[in-house]
């Protein structure tokens, strides 16, 4: 199966030519965004085993700064991306320092609370558009506004970012840092006794994860041209990252990608088929499938495939 990695890369590169048309490209963009966010989350939520359910705080910060730069100073939105990364970094330190003394669910709860706090606060803050939110340039002034008529440029920008995130994760996996993360996930006490700097490592993972998540948020708001508290900091944003990563397989390089590949088309298809009917069937199916997967494949699809693939292989060899 040496062919599979290049094949995958080729598939992603040529997807816009396989399924053509703005709607399919937009789904491609949505898929890439889900994959980027979930991969970013995966660094701290998967590899370090610190399940954050408040990653929307980084996503939201990243989403707000570009439009804020445009709104306040008329700068091209993309100029706000580094600012978003910096603020997210600071936020990660502020959150990580106290909460990483805690274990297990406390970290999850604390992240939910901080994200909610920020969401409500941003909703009352006039400078950042309060409840109404911020808009980007309706029509791009020049190419550097990154306001394209077509979805295609977004697709390739997002794809490039995904490649960077995955490559970084790949390098992390192989490094000493990655080894520390696995040790912490396996058991903090044991890791500490082996001399792993537990809190520093967790904090580093959170910082890395926050920066990438912030970039994902920036991509979202530049592409959508709009941000408000709910779509930036809402709990559903965080939950989506967790679900995508967990469904595909957390703490694996391609898990989030698999999760996004399953979930985004599933969401699109159920919404296309049942959304217009308005019976809520979209969510009943969506929720039901998540429950079933959690019940029968708690390790995610990646793990499932590892069970199934060898058996399939054997059968095909036997035939």
């Amino acid at each position, binding site marked *: 199966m040496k062919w599979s990695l290049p094949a995958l890369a080729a598939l992603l590169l040529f997807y816009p030519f396989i399924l053509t048309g703005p709607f399919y490209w937009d789904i491609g963009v949505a898929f890439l965004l889900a994959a980027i966010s979930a991969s970013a989350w995966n660094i701290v939520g998967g590899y370090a085993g610190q399940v954050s359910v408040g990653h929307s705080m980084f996503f939201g910060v990243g989403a707000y700064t570009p439009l804020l730069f445009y709104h306040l100073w008329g700068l091209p939105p993309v100029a706000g991306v580094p600012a978003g990364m910096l603020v997210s970094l600071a936020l990660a330190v502020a959150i990580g320092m106290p909460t990483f003394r805690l274990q297990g669910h406390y970290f999850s709860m604390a992240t939910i609370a901080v994200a909610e706090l920020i969401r409500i606060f941003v909703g009352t803050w006039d400078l950042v558009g309060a409840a109404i939110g911020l808009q980007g340039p309706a029509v791009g002034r020049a190419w550097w506004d990154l306001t394209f008529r077509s979805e295609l440029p977004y697709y390739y920008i997002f794809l490039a970012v995904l490649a960077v995130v995955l490559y970084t994760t790949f390098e992390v996996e192989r490094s000493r840092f990655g080894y520390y993360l696995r040790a912490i996930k396996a058991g903090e006490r044991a890791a500490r006794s082996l001399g792993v700097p537990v809190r520093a490592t967790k904090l580093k993972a959170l910082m890395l994860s926050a920066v990438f998540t912030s970039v994902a948020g920036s991509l979202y708001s530049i592409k959508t041209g709009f941000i408000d508290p709910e779509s930036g900091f809402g709990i559903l944003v965080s939950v989506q990252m967790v679900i995508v990563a967990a469904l595909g397989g957390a703490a694996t390089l391609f898990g989030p990608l698999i999760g996004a590949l399953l979930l985004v088309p599933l969401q699109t298809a159920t919404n296309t088929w049942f959304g217009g009917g308005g019976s809520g069937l979209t969510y009943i199916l969506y*929720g039901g499938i998540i429950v079933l997967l959690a019940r029968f494949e708690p390790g995610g699809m990646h793990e499932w495939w590892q069970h199934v693939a060898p058996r399939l292989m054997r059968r095909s060899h036997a035939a």
Partner: protein
Amino acid sequence: MLLAQVIVGGLLLGAIYALFSSGLTLIWGMMNFINFAHGEFVMLGMYVALLVVVWLGGGPATFGFAAAFALFVLGVIVYASLIRHVMRGPMLAQILSTFGLALLLRYTAFWIFSANFVSLPQVSLSGTLNVGGILMPVPQLVAGVAAIALTLGLHLLLTRTTVGSQLLAVAEDRNAAMLMGIRPDRMQALAWGLAAGSAGIAGALMAVSYPWSPSVGETFGLTAFVVVTLGGFGSVPGAMYAGLIIGLIQALSAYWLGPIYKDIVVYALFAALLWLRPQGLMGKA
């Protein structure tokens, strides 16, 4: 006088918070398991109350018990069919399972009852009590007192009865409990039943004075998390104090600073507490 009125309002609301959070804390403490569908249990309790009133014409006592019973059964079913299988799996699968369950329950209710807001038809509870100039609406008063009584009842059940000590034994050490002849599976099913049942009856009590639609569970769920974390997980009295305190903080900050700041104050205090006392008010360090 106005201040006293604000305080009373906050405490009455806090009492309900206490009741529906005590179920969440029970599960969390016993199994180290977060139930993201807890708010949905409260929501279902509200609809059970509505059905009982509309179909059977029952009063508050009837629909309260009906909601408790129906949700108890649901809690046991959820445990047996889902939780039992994921509880020793990865933490992510646990989170995923109850997230999915929350969506499933919310939108099944949506499907059956539609998105429209409903409220209980005027039940026998109405009127206002005037105690020394402080006005107390009877429905909220009854609900608040009942909520505190039930929360205390749950606490007594856990601390003063054989069943309670068996539950706690399973929470402390599953294997040791098994050696003592306790069947952990049964005890945990019971815990889920009690947790969902208390959420259900809290929903029924809320329904008396609060109009709702299927998406109401989200708000309740988030509130319950804050209450439980503040109170210290696993601690029913902790949840009670935390519920009352949060009700009070919300009311006072809404009155002094303005209603939009009440949640900001609650979450900010909560974040501060995580710095200072991460184990919660009544939690074990």
